[in-house]
């Protein structure tokens, strides 16, 4: 990819730039509509990560790294798990006498028992989606990367 000129890849680069935000929008749609139709956290998370993979295929690996840096990977993959465990601990706080973990009905979002359960499920699905997205994109970047010594050899040769 380094030897070719930039004009050879114009079509692929333009299409990848246009399609990536629509793919992410569809992924958000699949995650949030998990309760009304088919979908849910796992499915939407993988579709979200496929937008980053499309970007890496069109541009080089270093070009994809600019859009998904390491700090974002570390932050997002643990943030989703924190949300999930945090909702469980929150429900322990609100059932004071006999504490129950992950019983979403007692968290006072609204006034009905059943609607609290539906809202708790929504938040949990968003947490799952974030974690699955970060981990899938991170696995792809690691499997496609080169070893450190090969990178140093490539930098030293043109000198």
């Amino acid at each position, binding site marked *: 990819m380094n030897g070719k000129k930039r004009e050879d890849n114009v079509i692929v680069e333009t299409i990848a730039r246009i399609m990536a935000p629509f793919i992410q929008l569809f992924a958000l749609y699949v995650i949030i509509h*998990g*309760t*009304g*139709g*088919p*979908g*849910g*956290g796992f499915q939407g998370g993988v579709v979200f990560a496929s937008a980053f993979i499309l970007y890496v295929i069109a541009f080089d690996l270093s070009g994809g790294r600019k859009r998904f840096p390491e700090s974002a990977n570390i932050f997002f*993959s*643990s943030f*989703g*798990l924190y949300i*999930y*465990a945090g909702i*469980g601990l929150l429900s322990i706080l609100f059932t004071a006498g006999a504490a129950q973990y*992950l019983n*979403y009905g007692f968290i006072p979002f609204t006034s*009905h028992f*059943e*609607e609290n*359960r*539906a809202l*708790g*499920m929504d938040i*949990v*699905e968003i*947490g*799952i989606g974030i*974690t*699955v997205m*970060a*981990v899938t994109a*991170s*696995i792809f970047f*690691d*499997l496609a*990367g080169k070893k*450190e010594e090969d990178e140093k050899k490539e930098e030293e040769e043109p000198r």
Partner: protein
Amino acid sequence: MNKLEVAALVPIILLCGLFVYVAEDIPVFGDPNAAPIRYVEIFSIDSDEEGELLEQQIVPQKLTRGLVERGFPPPSRLEKVPGPPGEWNAFIAKDEAHYAREEKYYFIRREKGKLKVYRYAFVVRWIEKGLQETAVPNMVTYGLADYRGYDTLGETTVIFTAGVSVILLLRRRSRL
């Protein structure tokens, strides 16, 4: 090299024979009355006078004794299934430790002079009461995130651990 392929074919042929031998008990594809989908048969009684007792919605003694012998909770109330004659649903009473309210548990059917007693599978309660207990119409979502939420927490931990172990294996730097 050929020894490995021949040695791999031997357990495969044995397994094939075992699978063909077991193929009698496998249910037909798409059967709505097969065992795990709707109900499982427990036992059957020869009906002498239990049929009339069931018509008057009284639980017969033989039924209760036969169920308790096999370790099932005794039924408390009977109700007739609307539709073809000769089918009843039996409920069990509220038990503070296990069931929060009255549950539909047994299914009794009279065919050819015998009374067959079935027990409903757990999925029937999921399908029928899910929209009323959680205000969500998608059965798979409220099964994953509400009734089986603990399993999904472990699942998210599994995929997080996979991400961490791929990072550990593939990024070795000399100064670490």
